[in-house]
């Protein structure tokens, strides 16, 4: 019950933080369910030195990042007994009383010429011990990125897994009645810094990030229903159709792990088959050969296999094939349908759209055991996409008649809703931004 109260105060804190920022994010993220054993942490407002105040409240960004995972319960600022900004001023007893296990404090120093130095310390409250200390420098414009980087460091230290805060999500929105209703966007993983990449009269489907995070491949119906594949560099907007020497519709692109090839689907004469194209020399290789619909290919991280949707067994299920073709293995058996897989970054799990009792939900399956875990309880959930650290799956769902995004931890314990003003769909989580 303590956790629940904590989470509620947290959400209030996040909302308040958002309201203080002039350009509130159009995509707002709320935790609807967190874990019972969330780690109690305190992130003290950072001290400020120098002539200019930092553009953002860095402790608030870190606090929101960690809380959003559902794995941390951060103390509200008003409940803090002290607000140290230097390691020498910490009285651990103040934090034990508040049942904190971890403590983060720091300060921001303006260095001149738009540069800031951010120092921060992480403590184990019960051992009264400093766990780590870091300096991060950043400019006015990448201040939020610096804060996310700090969240990554803290998250990795406390959970043993890399964070996914320095990442982005791409998604498609539909504004009813607009001349160009469909838009492709990207935003930071916390919903900030939304950037429009494309507006179109026609549906934009299946955006997928290149492994270097610099490009998006997607399919579009802009050619009068003749589906085609496009690649767009988000930094400069440069956009090209992938020229594929095949008649028929081309869609469902997915990048090979080395970023040099695309797997995709070509549909002609009632038959959808999976191909691979080498992007440099445009050489094609047909991967599947079957009269059924074979589509929605995804590469395994080792680049050796492709997992895809096929109705060769009567209804859509997931199958696996070597990229060189050959024998096909059926992967899914539970439920009436399983489709549109995404493979976890470590290659051990697949997320999918799972149909059972007429409802479409998101499920995750352990590839080693075949154990399938249904994570959501929607009716039309679709388009699952793993976070690059494998901790969460973002997906599209419906609320009322409006499409919206949601995310769920791979164990199903943490749920988030990503609310948006328009219909939103087709989310894709980027690789980790290493810059």
């Amino acid at each position, binding site marked *: 019950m303590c956790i629940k109260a904590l989470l509620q105060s947290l959400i209030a804190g996040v909302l308040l933080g958002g309201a203080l920022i002039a350009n509130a994010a159009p995509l707002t993220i709320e935790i609807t369910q967190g874990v019972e054993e969330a780690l109690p942490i305190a992130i003290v407002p950072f001290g400020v030195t120098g002539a200019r105040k930092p553009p953002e409240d860095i402790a608030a960004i870190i606090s929101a990042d960690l809380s959003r995972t559902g794995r941390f319960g951060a103390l509200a600022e008003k409940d803090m007994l002290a607000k140290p900004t230097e390691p020498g001023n910490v009285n651990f007893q103040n934090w034990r009383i508040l049942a904190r296990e971890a403590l983060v404090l720091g300060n921001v120093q303006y260095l001149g010429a738009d540069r800031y130095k951010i120092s921060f310390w992480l403590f184990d409250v019960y051992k009264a011990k400093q766990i780590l200390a870091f300096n991060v420098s950043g400019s006015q414009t990448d201040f939020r990125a610096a804060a996310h980087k700090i969240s990554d460091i803290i998250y990795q230290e406390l959970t043993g897994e890399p964070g996914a805060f320095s990442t982005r999500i791409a998604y498609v929105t539909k504004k009813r009645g607009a001349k160009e209703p469909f838009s492709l966007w990207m935003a930071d993983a916390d919903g900030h810094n939304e950037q429009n990449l494309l507006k179109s009269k026609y549906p934009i489907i299946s955006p997928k990030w290149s492994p270097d995070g610099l490009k998006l491949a997607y399919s579009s119906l802009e050619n009068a229903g003749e589906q085609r594949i496009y690649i767009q560099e988000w930094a400069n907007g440069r956009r090209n159709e992938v020229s594929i020497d095949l008649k028929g519709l081309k*869609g469902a692109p997915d990048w090979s792990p080395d970023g040099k090839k695309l797997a995709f689907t070509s549909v002609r004469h009632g038959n959808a088959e999976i191909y691979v194209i080498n992007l440099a020399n445009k050489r094609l290789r047909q991967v599947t050969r079957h009269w059924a619909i074979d589509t929605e290919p995804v590469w395994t991280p080792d680049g050796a296999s492709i997992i895809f949707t096929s109705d060769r067994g009567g209804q859509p299920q997931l199958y696996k094939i070597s990229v060189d073709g050959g024998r096909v293995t059926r992967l899914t058996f539970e439920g009436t349908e399983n489709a549109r897989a995404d493979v976890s970054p470590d290659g051990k799990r697949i997320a999918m759209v799972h149909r059972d009792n007429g409802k479409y939900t998101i499920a995750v399956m352990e590839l080693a055991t075949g154990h399938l875990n249904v994570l959501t309880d929607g009716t039309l959930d679709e388009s699952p996409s793993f976070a690059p650290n494998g901790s969460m799956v973002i997906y599209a769902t419906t609320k009322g008649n409006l499409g919206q995004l949601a995310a769920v931890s791979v164990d199903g314990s943490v749920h988030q809703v990503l609310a948006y003003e328009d219909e939103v769909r087709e989310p894709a989580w980027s690789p980790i931004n290493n810059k």
Partner: protein
Amino acid sequence: MKFLTKFSPALLLLPAILLLSACGTTGEAEQEQAQAVAGGGAAADSDDGANASGASSGSADAMPMMEPEPEPEPLRDPLEEGLLAQRVVYFEFDSSVIRDDALPLIQAHAQYLASNPMLITLEGHADERGTREYNIALGERRADSVRRLLMANGVPGNQIKVVSYGEERPAALGHNEDAWSLNRRSELMYLR
């Protein structure tokens, strides 16, 4: 109900205006009034309305002489009559099998296309259930079923183009079987 609010009142008047202008006895003043109303509405449509009433006012004097002669037979468009006016083939869930009740419609179009070298685009569509890319493939397979049947009935393949919108362009909104059954379809679009 909701989409009605999107029409401007002037647009709703348009049918009435066209009716008025088609009638030869309309006085000048009334016609001007009608044009003024149409002019206040949506730009593209008001042009049509204004032209129509202008033409009828110009031929008003000649009307009595023309009357005994039979109207020149307006070109009757066979595509607007009978089975040929029906352009949508419906399918079962996750199926691209042509239902028996769609056969007469497709055969009628096949007969027409076989003797008229017109181009036709077959659009495939799916309901919102199932995944988007799968539904693109399913839509294509539905349209292709229609293509095969047209060809089996004598239509040359080069007259037919197949595209698919998957679940992206529903004919009916709503999340129930009534809407879904209208959305699982192939539309025959004549290019003319």
